[in-house]
């Protein structure tokens, strides 16, 4: 029996705005004021790093990053440096996992959804439990996954699937703390352009399926939080 859930697709949103709005939504989800919510969007170029990130994994200096038009942000998830930017589908599912959360199961389902999306566009991918959470094509990562829980029961952050991301950005970091692994994207795998808008409906369908959700658009006042410069 699928649970009703909200879907927010606000387009390209600056990282800070989205991060703040996501946290506020998670608080409301904790209080059971809103249903499970999924946000699918893109970010302007930004490097984010979690707790385990080592400073020397940022290979470009912050000035260099800024000169290229990017930002650096340290955030509250685990994991090391990763990149978000145009051409990459970023998904933030804000789901209540219940009083007995199984984070491992949640991550596995996210991987499964992304693997399904890739399969739909013709890219064979899989999980590499032995290496790291995420979705891989051979030795290259096509989708990073990094998650945090709020109060041990509501999910934050999520996944970042390279559709036609400019992979050269990844040279600025030791991505995910794995110096010997490469990055790839759907477009790179297929040799033709597949952009975020092509992938969005597939993402919606696969997320609905693995989490047994029935999406409806979120109310306007929820969506505008992602669109205003200083979200209230």
């Amino acid at each position, binding site marked *: 029996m699928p649970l009703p859930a909200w879907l927010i697709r606000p387009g390209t949103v600056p990282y800070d705005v989205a991060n703040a709005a996501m946290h506020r939504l998670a608080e409301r989800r904790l209080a059971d004021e809103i249903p499970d919510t999924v946000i699918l969007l893109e970010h302007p170029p930004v490097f984010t790093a979690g707790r385990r990130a080592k400073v020397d994994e940022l290979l470009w200096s912050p000035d260099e990053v800024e000169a290229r038009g990017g930002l650096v942000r340290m955030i509250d998830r*685990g994991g090391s440096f990763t990149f978000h930017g145009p051409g990459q589908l970023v998904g933030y599912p804000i789901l209540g996992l219940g*009083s007995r*959360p199984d*984070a*491992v*199961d949640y991550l596995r389902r996210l991987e499964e959804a992304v693997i399904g999306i890739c399969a739909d566009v013709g890219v064979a991918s899989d999980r590499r439990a032995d290496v790291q959470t995420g979705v891989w094509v051979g030795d290259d990562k096509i989708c990073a996954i990094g998650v945090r829980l*709020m*109060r*041990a029961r509501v999910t934050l952050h999520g996944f970042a699937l390279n559709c036609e991301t400019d992979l050269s950005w990844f040279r600025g970091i030791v991505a995910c703390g794995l110096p010997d692994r490469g990055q790839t994207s759907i477009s790179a795998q297929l040799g033709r352009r597949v952009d975020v808008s092509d992938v969005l409906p597939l993402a919606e369908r696969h997320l609905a399926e693995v989490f047994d959700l029935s999406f409806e658009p979120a109310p306007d006042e929820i969506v505008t939080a992602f669109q205003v410069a200083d979200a209230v």
Partner: protein
Amino acid sequence: MTSIQMPQLGETIVEGTILKWLKREGDAVARDEPLFEISTDKVDTEVPSPVAGTVTKILVDEGATVPVGTALMEISEAGAAASGDAAASGDAAASGDAAASGDGATSSGDAAASGDAASSPASGAAPTTEPTPEPSGGAASSEGSSAAPPPAAVTPPAAPAVPAAPAAPVAPAAAASVPAAVATVPDRGPRSQILSPLVRRLAKEHDLDLAQIAGTGSGGRITKADVMAVISSGGQVAPATAGATAPVTAPAQPMPAPSAGIGEEIVPVSHIRRAIAEHMLASTQTSARAWTMVEVNVDHLVKLRERIKATFQERYGLKITYLPMVVRATVDALLEYPDVNARLDGDNIVRHRFVNMGIAVSYDAGLIVPVIKGADGMNTIGVARAIADLAARARSHQLRPDEVQGATFTITNPGPYGSVASVPIINQPNVGILSFDAIVKRPVVIDDAIAIRSMVNISMSWDHRVIDGEAATRFLARVKENLETWDFAEDLGV
């Protein structure tokens, strides 16, 4: 006291690292407020508190990586007089020092369950039963606690055993997975913390505090009927109180010490003594106390004990005394006469469908009443072990707060000290307290001839508000009949 453990955030996650404590010892914490941040190999999170209270202990340093399930901190719940490790009761009668509840009052099990009570219901039935020597009741000289305890094989309370075998397990997983719900349901009986799915849902939908609902189901379980009664009476009732007037704690200002007169010695009242005094006085002011006695011929029990005591000691590692047999006989009578195994709660007589037997134990600090939970599910050996264990730990001051609460009936055994009849004070909120005095050889008339038999007086102080003389007498007659006719040899496995 609630123990906060390293949570398991996923099946394959086996350890976590404390990144940062968000609360320090002594801080107040609200329910669901974050206590600390952890990091695991898959996910980070802050961990919220399942209860409201005060942080009493932090057990692990920041930066430490510990296995899932490791105790990390202790929280003493709101309303508790946080006094060291004898955390007193939660919402209702805060009876000061929980370690000293004598014949007077027990704080009716309203205390929030301690962390270890929030374990599986089956183990809640038989808390600890490592056998050690008998209590004050059983032997005139308290034997040294020398025996190494053999493994305790306690029978859990009679769980429903459908012959065609039930499809579902007896006890739903009401345990630590829902720490909030279970931790706030007091340990009032062996199954008082089993919350069925229906009960949980109704409580959630109607915003009820399950801790305040008396469970009348088997083993103290809160049933659908219990919850529906609250809902249809318009909402949450006032906290189920002990029935006794809550004894007040020490007065704000100590009285000035009187000076000793000639021929006088001043001994300040210990605070255990004061608690006993308050409970005793409150008990006499609460119950309409009456008293009945029966004479019981226990000649065959004396002979039995002579015959088997060596074998019993050898086989079970403890001395067999009469008290476990009296307990067994009494349990049967209590189940037969449920009004005696009850308490008065406002206008209702709450009958318990299980027996938590309080055993009065005399020790250096005075008097204490440890409770054998689920005594109705034990055979005589189990009772003997439970008594031995509780008494030993009473004397070494090692009883836990939940072990001195929740009695549904009490037995006192002053016999070893020589009394042939006693009029004990009721241990509130019980309806009765049974006294088992000295066994004495006496001339008795049998078939119109005089014979010498071992006789004992068994008497009961009982609350005339709840039962009448006929019930009390019938009850005692049943205890007598059980003691006089049962074959304890079989039950003792010798």
